[in-house]
């Protein structure tokens, strides 16, 4: 990924409002403003959701894979738009999401998200998740802004 003369290791906590146990990005690996981002989520057997999903058979919940994609996208948007008072970046839709193999403790999920279309503040962002180079999930999102009270 080409450098954009900006720090590549963005501080995740400054770019996401989520916190433990729903933080699904550990680290930004690289990014290109307004275009794409690569993030990492290390899945460990210590993750709290494995207490119930499932006892004795830990499988990373699919909705959290989607969340991991969405948080990577949110960082990319936030890094471009900056903080906007009262406005939240929200998912409009999740499209064509495919889970290609279960994610298990020990997997290091690398998520790559790319903005493929932008109209005003709305965007289509497409993503791919890989573990050691193997594609484990793909999907497409629409993102927009919502003013919350």
């Amino acid at each position, binding site marked *: 990924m080409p450098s954009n003369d900006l720090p590549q290791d963005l501080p995740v906590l400054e770019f996401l409002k989520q916190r433990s146990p729903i933080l699904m990005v550990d680290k930004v690996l690289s990014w290109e403003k307004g275009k794409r981002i690569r993030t990492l989520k290390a899945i460990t057997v210590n993750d709290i959701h494995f207490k119930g999903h499932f006892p004795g058979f830990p499988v990373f919940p699919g909705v959290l894979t989607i969340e991991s994609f969405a948080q990577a996208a949110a960082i990319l948007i936030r890094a471009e738009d900056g903080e906007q008072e009262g406005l939240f970046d929200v998912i409009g839709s999740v499209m064509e999401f495919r889970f290609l193999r279960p994610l298990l403790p020990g997997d290091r999920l690398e998520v790559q998200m790319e903005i493929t*279309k932008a109209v005003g503040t709305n965007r289509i962002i497409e993503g791919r998740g890989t573990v050691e180079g193997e594609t484990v999930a793909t999907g497409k999102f629409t993102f927009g802004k919502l003013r919350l009270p």
Partner: protein
Amino acid sequence: MDPNEIKKRIKGIIAGMFDVKSEDVQDTKPFIQMAKYDSMRALEFLAKVETEFNVMIDPDLLQKMGTVDSTTQVVLDLLHAK
């Protein structure tokens, strides 16, 4: 592709997005008059049309995709240009 087939599939997309019956989606009624149709839904519609017909749509064409009939024409033009 037959324009009527395109129209039928576009109605199917709208029906799926807004939880209405395909036969209730009108040819010339602007989507914007549908409850919950907004700029973000418009972009979702564009993405679904792209997937359905395996075409790339420039976001500038969104303004021409306001009804079933006008969207059918956009798709026809893109398929002919392939």
